[in-house]
C-alpha cells in the first residue's frame, strides 16, 4: 500500500497498511490529544471515530495558564477497547468513520479571553471531503497545525483517498522546497504566511496542480509569485472558520456563496452569518451563527464580495487568531504596568504582527522587558506574545470610552 506519511522523523507507521495493522492491534485510545507526535494523533483520532469515542484536539504548546479553564476531567484518560476491528477494504474503514457518532472538540481563540470550545461531528468535518478516482495519484503537502480545523480537514481528505501526506508543518524553506521537488507533490494548502516564507523562490514546481491559500487575507502580489513557482497549479483562496471548516473558495479575492449553501449562509449588515446546520454547533442553540467576518460587496447583484476585516477585535497573526484582550489582561498583571493596549500592525511576513503600547506606573523604574517576555512565554503560545513594545505616556480613548485599538 501507499505511503501514509512522508516526514523527516522516524515512524512506526509508514504505509496505509501499517496504519490498518495499528488500528487492528489497538488496545486503548487516547481521546484527549495534546502531544506533538502527529502519527499517534491521527491513529488515536481515527481509533476514536471507529469506536464512537469523543475526541479532543488541543495544541501541544498551550501553557498551564491557558489550560486553566479547561475541565481537568477532559485530560488524558486512555480508554481501553476490547473489541477489535479488522478492515480488509479501505472503503469499509472510511464508511465506518463517516457514520461515527463521536463528538470532536477543537479550541479556538474566544472573545472572552479563554479558549473557546467548538464541538463538531465527523459529518460536518467531512462535508467537503471528496473521495474520487481523480485523487488516486494525489500527494498532499501538510502545512497546518494538525490540531486545527484546516489540518484536520486536510488529513481527512488525504486519508479518505489513501493519499500520501507530506509533513511540511513548521519546516524551513529549504526543507519545504527540496521535499516538494523530491516527492512530486500535487496538492498544497497553507496560509499566506507559509507561502510568503517560501519567497523569493527561483525553482519551478510543475508537479503541483492545486495551491490553496487560507486562514488569512491573501493578496495579488502573493498569488502572482505563486503562479511562477507553481506554473501548472490552479490557485484558490478559501474561506474557512473553526466553527464551520472550509466553506467556499475562489480563484480571486472575490467570493460567491455556493449554490448548495444559498439558504444556509447569508450576509447581514455586511457580516457573514452561518446556519447552525453547517457549523460544528453541537451545544449551540441559536439558529444562526455570526462569524464576525465582514465583507465588502464587489458586485452585490451578482453576490460577489471580498472579506475585509473582523467585526470583533481578533487579530490574525500568520493564520492564528489572537484575542488582544486576553493578552492585555496578562500584561496588566505584570509589575509596573499601569495600562496596556495590544493591537495588530500590518507586517509583510505575518500579515499582522502583535504590538503592545505600555503605560508604566512609574517612569523612574527601569522596566525589564526581557523579564516581561519571559513571563509571557511561560503563559502564552508564542504567536500570542507581542513582538514589539512601545512605551507611551497614555493610551488614547475613543468617543465611546473604549480604548482605540487601531
Amino acid at each position, binding site marked *: 500500500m501507499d505511503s501514509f506519511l512522508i516526514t523527516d522523523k522516524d515512524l512506526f507507521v509508514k504505509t496505509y497498511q501499517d496504519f490498518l495493522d495499528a488500528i487492528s492491534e489497538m488496545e486503548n485510545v487516547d481521546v484527549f490529544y495534546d502531544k506533538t507526535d502527529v502519527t499517534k494523533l491521527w491513529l488515536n483520532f481515527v481509533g476514536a471515530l471507529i469506536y464512537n469515542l469523543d475526541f479532543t484536539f488541543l495544541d501541544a504548546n498551550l501553557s498551564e495558564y491557558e489550560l486553566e479553564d479547561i475541565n481537568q476531567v477532559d485530560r488524558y484518560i486512555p480508554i481501553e477497547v476490547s473489541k477489535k476491528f479488522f478492515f480488509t477494504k479501505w472503503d469499509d474503514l472510511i464508511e465506518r468513520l463517516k457514520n461515527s457518532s463521536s463528538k470532536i472538540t477543537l479550541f479556538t481563540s474566544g472573545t472572552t479571553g479563554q479558549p473557546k470550545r467548538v464541538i463538531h461531528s465527523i459529518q460536518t468535518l467531512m462535508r467537503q471531503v471528496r473521495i474520487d478516482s481523480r485523487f488516486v495519484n494525489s500527494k498532499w503537502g501538510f502545512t497546518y497545525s494538525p490540531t486545527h480545523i484546516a489540518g484536520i480537514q486536510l488529513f481527512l481528505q488525504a486519508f479518505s483517498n489513501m493519499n500520501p501526506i507530506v509533513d511540511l508543518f513548521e519546516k524551513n524553506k529549504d526543507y519545504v522546497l527540496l521535499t516538494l521537488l523530491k516527492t512530486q507533490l500535487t496538492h498544497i494548502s497553507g496560509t499566506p504566511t507559509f507561502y510568503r516564507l517560501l519567497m*523569493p523562490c527561483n525553482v519551478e514546481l510543475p508537479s503541483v496542480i492545486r495551491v490553496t491559500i487560507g486562514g488569512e487575507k491573501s493578496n495579488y*502580489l502573493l498569488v502572482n509569485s505563486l503562479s511562477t513557482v507553481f506554473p501548472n497549479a490552479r490557485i484558490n483562496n478559501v474561506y474557512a472558520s473553526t466553527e464551520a471548516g472550509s466553506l467556499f473558495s475562489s480563484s480571486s479575492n472575490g467570493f460567491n456563496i455556493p449554490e448548495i449553501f444559498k439558504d444556509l449562509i447569508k450576509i447581514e449588515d455586511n457580516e457573514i452569518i452561518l446556519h447552525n446546520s453547517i457549523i460544528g454547533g453541537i451545544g449551540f442553540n441559536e439558529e444562526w451563527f455570526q462569524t464576525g467576518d465582514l465583507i465588502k460587496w464587489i458586485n452585490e447583484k451578482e453576490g460577489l464580495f471580498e472579506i475585509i476585516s473582523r467585526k470583533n477585535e481578533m487579530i490574525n497573526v500568520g493564520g492564528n487568531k489572537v484575542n488582544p484582550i486576553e493578552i492585555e489582561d496578562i500584561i496588566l498583571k505584570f509589575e509596573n504596568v499601569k495600562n496596556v493596549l495590544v493591537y495588530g500592525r500590518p507586517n509583510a511576513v505575518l500579515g499582522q504582527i502583535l504590538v503592545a503600547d505600555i503605560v508604566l506606573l512609574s517612569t523612574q523604574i527601569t522596566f525589564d522587558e526581557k523579564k516581561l517576555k519571559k513571563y509571557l512565554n511561560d503563559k502564552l503560545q508564542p504567536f500570542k506574545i507581542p513582538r514589539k513594545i512601545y512605551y507611551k505616556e497614555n493610551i488614547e480613548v475613543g468617543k465611546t470610552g473604549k480604548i482605540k485599538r487601531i
Partner: protein
Amino acid sequence: MNKKEKLLKIINELVSSKHPNLIIPNFNDNYDLRKDLGLDSFDLAELTVNIEDEFNIDVFENGIIGTTNEIIEKLVI
C-alpha cells in the same frame, strides 16, 4: 553610530535574545537570516518592524528577503 552599525545592533539584539552566544561582528560576511542566524517567521516579522522604526523602510515589503546583504541593499547603506 552609522547606519550599518545601527542595523548590526538591531540584528544582534534579536539574534542574542534567541541564541545568547551568537553575535555577528560585522557585515563582512553575508549571513542567511534563517539558516545562519536561526530566525523564524516571528523573528523576521520583528526584525522588519525594528528596521522600519529605525530607517522608515519596510525591507520585506516586496517579498521576504533572505540575507543580511539583501537588507543592506534594500536600505542602500
